[in-house]
C-alpha cells in the first residue's frame, strides 16, 4: 500500500497530474480520509516523508528556497559519507557542495519510489567515487615511513594482537594510510563492504555496478589491501 501510494503520488507520473499530487500531500482537511485509509500506521515517518515530498514538489515548481530544508536535514549524513573518502575539510566541503548541486539539477529524475535519503546517498557515493578517481594521482603510491605512534601500535599488535587498542589515534592513522594507498574502486568497496558493513546488493545499488562486478571488485580490493599491508610490514620488519 505504501509503495503504491508513493508511486501514485509521484509528480511526474503520467497517471497523475501535478495538482492531484499536491492535493494528496496536503495534510488536512483535503482528502484526509485518503491518508487515514492509505497510511494507517506510518506515524512520524509518514509525516517526515510528506515534508520531503512537499519540499521536492515546491522545488520542482520553481521555488528554489524550498530546497534549503532538505539541505539542512540531510547534510550531516552527506558530510559523514564524504569524510570517509576525503581527509581535508576543504575537500569534504567541496564534495558535499557538489552532491547538493547535482541533487538540485537532477531533482526531476527523483521518482519518489524510494525515500529521498536513499536517492541522495546514491548520488553522494557516486560523487565520492568521482572525487577519488579525480585525485587518483595524489594518492600515496610511494610508501612513506610510518610515524612513531603508528610504528609503536604495529609493534604492540605484532607482540599481542589483542592488546593493540582499537581506539588509538595511531591505529586510525594507519587504516587511513592503507586506504589512501588503495585504488579508488578498491577503497570504495572496502569502505562500503567491510567498514560500513553493507551487503553486496546494497553496494550494487549505491554504486550502479552489477552484483557480479561488486563481488569481483571486492575480491580484488581485499587482495590489494593485503598487498599494501604486506608492503608496510615488509618495510618495517625487513
Amino acid at each position, binding site marked *: 500500500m505504501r509503495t503504491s501510494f508513493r508511486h501514485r503520488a509521484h509528480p511526474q507520473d503520467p497517471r497523475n497530474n501535478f495538482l492531484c499530487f499536491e492535493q494528496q500531500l496536503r495534510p488536512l482537511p483535503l482528502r484526509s480520509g485518503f491518508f487515514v485509509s492509505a497510511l494507517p500506521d506510518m506515524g512520524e515517518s509518514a509525516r517526515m516523508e510528506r515534508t520531503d515530498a512537499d519540499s521536492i514538489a515546491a522545488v520542482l515548481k520553481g521555488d*528554489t*528556497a524550498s*530546497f*534549503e530544508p532538505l*539541505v*539542512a536535514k540531510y*547534510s*550531516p*549524513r552527506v*558530510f*559523514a559519507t564524504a*569524510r*570517509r573518502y576525503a581527509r581535508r*575539510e576543504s575537500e569534504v*566541503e567541496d564534495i*558535499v*557542495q557538489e552532491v*547538493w*548541486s547535482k541533487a*538540485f*539539477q*537532477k531533482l526531476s529524475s527523483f521518482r519518489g519510489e524510494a525515500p529521498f535519503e536513499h536517492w541522495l546517498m546514491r548520488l553522494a557515493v557516486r560523487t565520492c567515487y568521482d572525487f577519488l578517481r579525480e585525485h587518483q594521482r595524489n594518492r600515496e603510491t610511494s610508501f612513506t615511513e610510518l610515524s612513531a605512534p603508528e610504528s609503536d601500535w604495529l609493534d604492540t*599488535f*605484532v607482540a599481542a*594482537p589483542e592488546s*593493540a587498542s*582499537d*581506539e*588509538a589515534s595511531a*591505529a*586510525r592513522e*594507519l*587504516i587511513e594510510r*592503507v*586506504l589512501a594507498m588503495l585504488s579508488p574502486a578498491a577503497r570504495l568497496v*572496502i569502505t562500503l563492504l*567491510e*567498514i560500513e*558493513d553493507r551487503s553486496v546488493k546494497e553496494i550494487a545499488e549505491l554504486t550502479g555496478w552489477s552484483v557480479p562486478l561488486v563481488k569481483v571488485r571486492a575480491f580484488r580490493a*581485499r587482495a590489494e*589491501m*593485503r598487498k599494501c*599491508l*604486506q608492503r608496510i*610490514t615488509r618495510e618495517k*620488519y625487513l
Partner: protein
Amino acid sequence: MNLDKLHNKLVAVARKNPPGDQVPYAFEQRVMARLSTAPRFDEWAAWARSLWYGAAVCAAVAVLMSVWSFSPDGEQDLAANFSQDLEQTILSPADAENPW
C-alpha cells in the same frame, strides 16, 4: 605476521571510529547561494549542444571523404591493377584447360 588478523583489526578500528557528521556553520546558506547563482541545467540546451557536436563531427567526416575521393590517380591505377589481377586469377584455370 598474520596479515589477515591485521586486516581485520584495522577494519575494526575504522568501524569503531566513524567519521563525524558535523556540518559547518551556515553551510545550507552557502549551498543555496551557490545554487541560486549557478545556471539551472537545461536538458534541451544540452541536447542541442550535443547535436551541434554531432553535426561538426559529421561535417569533418564528409570533408575527409571528399578529399579522399579526389585523391591522386595512384589509387585508380591500383584499382585497375587489382581488377586485372582478379580477372587473371579467376580465368587462369579456364586458360589452362583450353590451351588453344
